[in-house]
């Protein structure tokens, strides 16, 4: 028995086990984040949200998933069949891989590689490509417009993200996510958000990363891609049943990934704010707090215009993030 356990915890099996756990974590989260969002939206709007299905609507996501599974997967006439079917498959991949390198606690890491941050951002653009494939192969004007918007939006927001990440890599000196978290041990004043000795504009940097994360995941107020009132459902117009369900889940998986990266880089990952009893609980608490704020923002603000979004990125976020990069490197060099 002990041999079996050792064998399971040996490298290849451990990774597979970790990936299985992560996939089920993502699946469960995607389902129950929908519940949180609907209940949250209801409460912001002074109404209860789903209450009928199960106690307080808790079974609602499961029932919705069963409904989506039971629908026919319609492939419209004249679409590019391979691309149309491949798009939902590809869209989940980058978030699952990204989540495998995030440290949930000191020991709970899928694969603690020393270029974790690079891996996340290298693969991060694949989901944009998948949405574009889905939109373009649908042979539907609304989908094509939406796909074009998604691509330009994501390209514009990749740049400030990477500039911020480079700043943080300089500040912490490592690309290994677990190492970054370990450096922030000792209490909340040691978190990167509050380390103003090396990066005096740390809160601004955090804000830039947060805004870019909202834009990368096509969340309101940057959800042009799914602007319902203009474009029906955007890039996902022609998808039915679980095809649409997968895109939907992928959006929540991306939010999970984005919030996890923000937590690890700025809020100290699994470190506790008082220095003791660090662990998984703190990571999850911080991540879910950020996710709640993402939901809060969605239900408060209207959508920006398309060119307002791009203006924000190219004219404001990139100069500011360049400035913080230069400032941090100057501070590091001098002090």
């Amino acid at each position: 028995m002990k041999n079996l356990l050792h064998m399971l915890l040996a490298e290849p099996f451990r990774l597979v086990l970790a990936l299985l756990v992560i996939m089920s974590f993502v699946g469960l989260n995607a389902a129950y984040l929908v519940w949180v969002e609907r209940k949250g939206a209801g409460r912001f709007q002074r109404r209860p949200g789903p209450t009928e299905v199960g106690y307080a609507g808790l079974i609602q996501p499961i029932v919705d998933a069963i409904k989506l599974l039971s629908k026919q997967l319609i492939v419209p006439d004249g679409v590019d069949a391979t691309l149309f079917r491949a798009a939902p498959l590809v869209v989940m991949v980058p978030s699952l891989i990204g989540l495998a390198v995030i440290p949930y606690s000191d020991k709970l890491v899928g694969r603690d590689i020393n270029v974790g941050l690079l891996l996340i951002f290298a693969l991060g653009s694949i989901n944009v490509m998948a949405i574009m494939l889905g939109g373009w192969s649908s042979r539907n004007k609304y989908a094509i417009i939406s796909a074009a918007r998604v691509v330009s939006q994501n390209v514009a927001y990749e740049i400030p993200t990477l500039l911020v990440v480079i700043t943080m890599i300089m500040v912490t000196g490592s690309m290994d996510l677990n190492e970054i978290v370990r450096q922030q041990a000792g209490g909340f004043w040691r978190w990167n958000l509050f380390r103003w000795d090396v990066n005096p504009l740390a809160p601004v940097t955090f804000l830039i990363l947060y805004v870019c994360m909202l834009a990368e995941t096509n969340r309101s107020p940057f959800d042009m891609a799914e602007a319902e009132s203009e474009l029906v459902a955007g890039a996902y117009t022609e998808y039915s049943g679980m095809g649409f369900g997968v895109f939907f889940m992928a959006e929540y998986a991306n939010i999970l990934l984005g919030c996890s990266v923000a937590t690890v880089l700025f809020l100290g990952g699994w470190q506790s704010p008082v220095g003791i009893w660090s662990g998984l609980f703190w990571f999850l608490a911080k991540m879910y707090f950020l996710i709640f704020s993402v939901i809060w923002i969605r239900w408060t603000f209207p959508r920006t215009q398309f060119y307002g979004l791009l203006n924000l990125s190219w004219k404001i976020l990139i100069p500011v993030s360049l400035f913080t990069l230069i400032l941090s490197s100057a501070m590091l060099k001098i002090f």
Partner: protein
Amino acid sequence: MKNAFKEIVVGFNSLVTGMRITLGQFFKPAVTVQYPYETLPIPPRFRGHIELVRDPETGKPKCFACKLCERACPSDCILVDGAKLDGAKKKSVTVYKLDFTKCSLCGSCVEACRDGAIRFSRDYNLAGLSKEEFIMDLFAKLQAEAQAAGVTPEAPAPAEPVKTGPAAPAPTQTPPPAAAAPKSEPPQREPVKADAP
């Protein structure tokens, strides 16, 4: 340059204010009413479909088929017919059908009636399974309520040209559409509380 900074700061403040307002609303109670489990009280002047009013003394409907409501209706949805009973001065209503599929609840009929023989009901649970349920036979409804309340008025024979009055009350009634449970309460119980004017 300075303007750009000012704009960014003011804009950011507006975003924070907006979020503060929504967070405040988050912690306030819900304003909705969960309908099938909770209902709201219906105001006394609510405009539901019309119903015949029964005269408390005689127990018969006040309507004497003058057809003013039929003429006033813009949608042609009322059908009234009456017959003179033996020895009565005025006619009594024998048929009163309201085609609710055409009714627009304008109230012209209630306004046109000079004797207060019809009034608005406060019935809003009107889901049905067929169109025929909405061709409401208001006279039959009134008879059914009268029976349920234990007061059976003299029922004239329907649709018979009256040269001789009916000998006995009509033996058949259309079955009550909703099971009106007979209550052991004083008779003349009005099914819907009518407010006085």
